[in-house]
Structure formats: C-alpha cells, structure tokens
C-alpha cells in the first residue's frame, strides 16, 4: 500500500529514512524514485547521500549544515509539489545471458524443482520485463522483480562462498546479476559478460534504480560479441 503521507524515521542524528509505502510494489518504488530524483536535482545543501530502496529513501545529511526539521520541511514540499514532467522515464536495458551448463550450475535443479524442462525456465526468465527496485548488497547488484510465479524458487540451502562475476541468479520472486565475485545464496541459472560494475568508469554501473531490464538468451559462442 502506498502511504498518503510518507513516514519519517530517524537513523541516528545524521540519517533520515523516508518510507513511501509498506510493501514491495512498482507503484511504491516509483514514488521512491520520484522523490530521490527530485532531491538529487535540487542539490540540497548538507545532503551527503541518498540511497533509494524498495519502499524507502535513506537520506544521509550533515547535521551541522542542515537541521532535521529543515530537511523534513524540504521533503514534505517536494512530496506535495513534485513536477513529474521533470522526472525522466525509466530506461530499458537488455542483458545477454548464457543459460545453464557451467555458467548456470543451478538451472537443472530449478527446472526439477518446478518439474519443467530447463528450456521452460529460460523462456519464462527471458519473457518478462523486470524493474530494478534497488541497488545494494555489493556495488552494482540490482534487485529486480517480479519473477513469474511459475519460476519463483527458494534460495540455496547452503550459500556459495564465491559466485563468479556476471552470474545471473534467482531467489524467491526476484532476479539479479552478481557484478563482482562475492558470496551468494541465489540459484545461479546463467552468466552475462556485460560488466555491471567498473569503479573506473562513470557511472560505475550501467543499471540504475527504476530501470527496466530484459534478459536475452544467447549461445556461448556469442558471449564475446556482447563484451563491453
């Protein structure tokens, strides 16, 4: 449910959590994005950081430069007077994926779990447009949803200590790509050669919260063609 008025919660003396709704939904997330972009465009003095998430925006500020009440006033104003024409439309990006085999070691398990052939998992995974709800966990890790109910799968019972860079995973009704080698418990069904985190590039990750993403099934031989 979308809140009529945002809820403000303090996280210490220099961070304010603004909640726009009580659940994961495209509508609530859209409101988070609007408030985030509005705050970003206005470059408020004293705001150090803003982290948009599923249903909330965390604003980190310098309390010596802006008071909590002044910050709240600003946010209330933005919330009520937001000019949606200034909010850019979300972009759509394609992520090429080699499914199964050594690149997607959990694809067969996921297929067996749902009692369908692996091709059906690929068809369903590539047949949906996903929304980037938030980026977190590691640099550039995009939490995307919603996965079709027919392929929603629990996390692995034992997380892997190291998931290779580019691995495409699913967990419950979400999907995501591991941009850097990291530990992880998601079911790995494929891999992309698209580089989703490069600290020396700007922006460091091609995905942004609010973007729309489609996965594209490619053959192993095509992997290099997509490399960036």
């Amino acid at each position, binding site marked *: 449910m979308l809140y009529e008025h945002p809820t403000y919660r*303090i996280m210490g003396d220099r961070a304010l959590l603004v909640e726009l709704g009580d659940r994961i939904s495209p509508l609530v997330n859209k409101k988070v994005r609007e408030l985030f972009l509005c705050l970003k465009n206005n470059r408020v003095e004293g705001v150090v950081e803003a982290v948009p998430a599923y249903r*909330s*925006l965390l604003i*980190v500020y310098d309390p010596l430069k802006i008071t909590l009440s002044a910050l709240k006033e600003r946010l209330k104003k933005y919330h009520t007077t937001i000019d949606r024409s200034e909010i850019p439309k979300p972009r759509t990006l394609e992520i090429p994926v080699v499914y199964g085999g050594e690149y997607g070691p959990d694809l067969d398990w996921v297929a067996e779990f749902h009692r369908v052939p692996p091709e059906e998992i690929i068809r369903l995974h590539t047949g949906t447009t996903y929304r980037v709800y938030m980026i977190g966990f590691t640099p550039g890790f995009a939490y995307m949803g919603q996965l079709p109910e027919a392929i929603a799968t629990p996390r692995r019972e034992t997380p892997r200590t190291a998931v290779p860079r580019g691995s495409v995973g699913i967990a419950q009704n979400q999907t995501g790509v591991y941009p850097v080698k990291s530990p992880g418990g998601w079911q790995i069904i494929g891999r992309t050669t698209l580089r989703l985190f490069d600290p020396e590039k700007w922006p460091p990750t091609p995905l942004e919260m609010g973007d729309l993403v489609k996965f594209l099934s490619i053959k192993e031989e095509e992997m290099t063609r997509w490399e960036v």
Partner: protein
Amino acid sequence: MGSIETLEILAPGPLTTVQDRGRFGFGRFGIAPSGALDSFSLRIGNLLVGNREDEACLEITLLGLKVRALVDSLIAVTGADLQPHLNRKPLQMWRSHIMKEGEILSFTVPRSGCRAYLALGGGISVTPLMESKSTNLSSGFGGFKGRALRKGDILASDSPRLHLKAEGKALDRKLIPTYGKNWILRVLFGPQDDHFTEKGKKTFLNSSFNVTPHSDRTGIRLSGPVIRTRAGMEESIISEGVVSGTIQIPGDGQPIIILGETVTGGYRKIATVISADLPLLGQMKPGEQVNFEGVSMEDAYHALGKLEGIIKRFREGL
C-alpha cells in the same frame, strides 16, 4: 616536486589499508563509504603533519606493521596505542616527527584501542576513485591497488619535503582520547525501535555486551542477552539503506553495529550510535564490553558540536 616514493612496507601486519574519510554519495550504486573507522584520529593525524584533514592515512589494525622511510618525511601516529617505535625507540603519539631516510617505524601489540593511523606529510599518492582514496576491501577497488598492503609495497607522497617544517606539532595532552575496555556508546532509538518489546529495549539499555572475535570492518558483532522483537514479527524487513553506527538485531537477538562497508540491509535496527561516538567504533576490540546509553537528538548535536569544536580549535591553533 610532485609525487615521491616515501615508504616501503617491510611487514604489513594482519590488516593495514589506505583510508581517507570515505566515499560518500555513491550509495545509489550500491557503493559503501569505506573510510577510516576512527575519523577523529585520521583528521588529527593529518593536521599534525600539515595535510588536509581528509587526506588518506594508513589504518593499522592491532599490530605488526613495519615500514622503512625512503626519504626524510614527516609522520604522526594517532589512534590506538600499538606501541610504535622509531628505530627501536618508543615514539610519542599524537605528535609529528621527522622520520629520516632509512629509519624504521614498527608497531608491536596494542596497549589500548584497536586501530592506529599513520599520517604522512604529503599524504598517500593513490588515484582517487569516486572522489576518495579509501580501500573498498570486499569489492577490491580504491586505496592501494584495491587491497590490503603487502610486504614490498612502496607508497608515495606528494612533495613530502614541504611538510618537514611542521615537525613538533602535538595535540594537547588533555584532548588525547583514552581507550579502555568498557565502552559506553550513546545512541538514539530508531529507526525500528517500535518493532521491539519494552522489555527488549530495556535489555538493550541495561545490559553489557561482549565484542566477539567475528567483528571486522563490516560490523562489530556483540553477544549478550537476547533482545526480543514484538510477537509476530518476521525475521527480516524489506531491505533499506543503512549508515555506519546503526545497530541491527538479526533473528538470534544479538546486536551487530554496522560499520562503513555496508550500504543496504534487511534486518531491523533498534538504535543508532550518535555521530560524536562513531570514532570510538574503530577502537573497540574483541573481548571488550559495551553498554548503550539512550540520549536525545539535542544531546547528540551538542556532543557533535563539542567534538567538531575540538578539531576546529586545533586546526586554527596550528
């Protein structure tokens, strides 16, 4: 003069990294701030050697660092007392000294605190990534080649000679922090304190917690009495942004104080350490005790103003 090779790492100790005040403003890309865990010591160290206070230093964890000067440089050691010695003679901390070419600075074991900072006149010449020289260890970028220092690494500084004249600057003895084994951290309740029972909140405020050995730069893991949530609460919440100092309570009821290597999280947070006490988080080590003290927002601002006042007066008095 430009960048000049100043220090050779003879032994790195268990964990020595390049850190400045942190990489802020990139949380929307999932990038955590990293940075010196004790920013007070970092800032004072830099000022002692004539740097900007947000310049990068070496953050030395517990023990073992040994370095050799490749040119005459100005140094200062702040933070934890890891018994620094310059050419085998004890080195006075919180004061700038000239380290002559060929001299060796070594750290043995902690007498108090957990992390010492070695500031170099002219800073540490590494390429800033996203406006910061801090090392992001888990993702392997920033700082010195995105990793902890190793034997044989050579660090460079910008025009070290220009800093030599600042020798002998010292922080007033009365202002030097002392680190005991029993910590009191001032906190503000929130953001999810309403998810806990009244008894849970009382347990949080009235108990001592142990710092466990599982603590590292990502978080300080505590053990103590279980802090209970209200009935019917799920184990996790919908993930949201987090800041350093926020105290999350996972399903087992044992608090974890988040440090600067995390940008989002899905556990509920009972309270958050006030900004003025954040530098202390860098100095707590396993085996020590922590108590939490609830304060008001006004108290928190007052404490921060006091801390910033100390740094400001020191900077202006130099």
